[in-house]
């Protein structure tokens, strides 16, 4: 299983039946393929759907029905379409239970940076800032290090923040890590890795309870 497949498979377990979930662009979008066909969940796509689902069968694809990543999706029974003001009212009023989102950097205070790399990448904010600031539970899906091997889980974000103190949990291919008042606490290891090796690829301080063992 590739690193990203492992992240996606673990992330799918985060989704609680009966909840409303927004899946951000990138790794989070792919989590939907892992969900059981009849699962009782409503996927919110901020372009204006509550009840978006997996890609529609080819003969049922509708060019006027996409999710926020641009996929031609099916909708679940009980879904609704609405304009963008209503869609973001839903977000700002805290009606989305869980948002999974990607990150350039995340830090031990739960700060998230995922929208801009000054001088390199600034395609706009999209819906990230409102989702990050207003969803009660934010789970970050990210590879543990960037493509050059630099840690992405930092003591303090260096890039412009999307939102401060918003992250509840971080899922990487190595571990599941919670942001707590005491700092970052490792809850699960997703591969055989020693505590020392995990700390070595993480800039932030990690609390690793003795009970945590590699799977």
């Amino acid at each position: 299983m590739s690193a990203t497949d492992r992240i996606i498979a673990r992330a799918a377990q985060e989704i609680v039946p009966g909840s409303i979930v927004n899946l951000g662009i990138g790794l989070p979008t792919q989590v939907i393929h892992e969900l059981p066909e009849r699962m009782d969940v409503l996927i919110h796509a901020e372009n204006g759907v509550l009840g978006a689902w997996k890609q529609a069968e080819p003969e049922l694809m509708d060019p006027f029905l996409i999710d926020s990543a641009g996929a031609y999706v099916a909708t679940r029974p009980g879904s609704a379409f609405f304009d963008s003001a209503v869609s973001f009212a839903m977000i700002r009023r805290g009606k989305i239970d869980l948002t999974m989102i990607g990150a350039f950097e995340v830090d031990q205070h739960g700060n998230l940076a995922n929208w801009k790399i000054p001088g390199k990448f600034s395609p706009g904010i999209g819906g990230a800032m409102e989702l990050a600031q207003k969803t009660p539970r934010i789970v970050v899906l990210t590879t543990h290090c960037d493509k050059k091997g630099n840690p992405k889980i930092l003591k303090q974000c260096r890039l412009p923040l999307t939102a401060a103190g918003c992250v509840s949990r971080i899922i990487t291919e190595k571990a599941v890590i919670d942001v707590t008042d005491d700092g970052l606490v490792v809850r699960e290891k997703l591969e055989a890795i020693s505590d020392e090796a995990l700390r070595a690829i993480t800039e932030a301080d990690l609390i690793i309870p003795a009970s945590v063992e590699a799977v």
Partner: protein
Amino acid sequence: MNKQQTIEEAIGQIPDGASIMVGGFGSPGTPFSLIDELLRQGQRNLTLIKNDANEAGIGISKLIENGQVDRLIATHIGLNRSVIEMMNSGALEVEFHPQGIFAEKIRTAGAGSFGFLSDIGMESEITRPEQLLEWQGQRYKVEMALRADFALIHAAHADNYGNLIYRGTAINFSPLMAMAADQVIAETADCQPPGRLEPAMIHTPSAFVSSLVLLPALTNDYGIMEHHVRH
């Protein structure tokens, strides 16, 4: 009350230097035919207000690539490398807003109000100190309403009065923009006589629409984009 015009007449009302809201989140809701007529007529120094810049070679990207646009107000242009390069080289001025704030600024103008108080991104670099306000012990960010001279809208169904119904996620910013622009040009491939559309199903009431263009058919631009299909 019949608002039907030819596409040439309708787009011909737009002068150089106009501000124009354009519906659509990606392709759904984008009025490709009205945009192509604006490209043909060649109005310049435009300010466009759209969620995104479509993708290179289609929709408003054609107008931007053709040098007709000075300024774009948007939320995200990540799918359009051509426009990102024009922004980076200084050929195009781009102003970004968080997506829901962008929607709400337009909705506010459409409701005849002038601004609203928000707490989104107050501590971030998108906020300048002069945008913050303290009122009864709380701090807020002042967000001003966003209006435009024109809006270009695609509707799935319409009647001659200009009542509009949108399809699927093509609704996105369209009903908001239709309220926030002084003149609203809507296109549709299905225009009915008054009385055929169910009144309770109307998304945009006719009072907001000034011109209606009947399209003979929807071009390929409105169809499935193969590169967005996962195999």
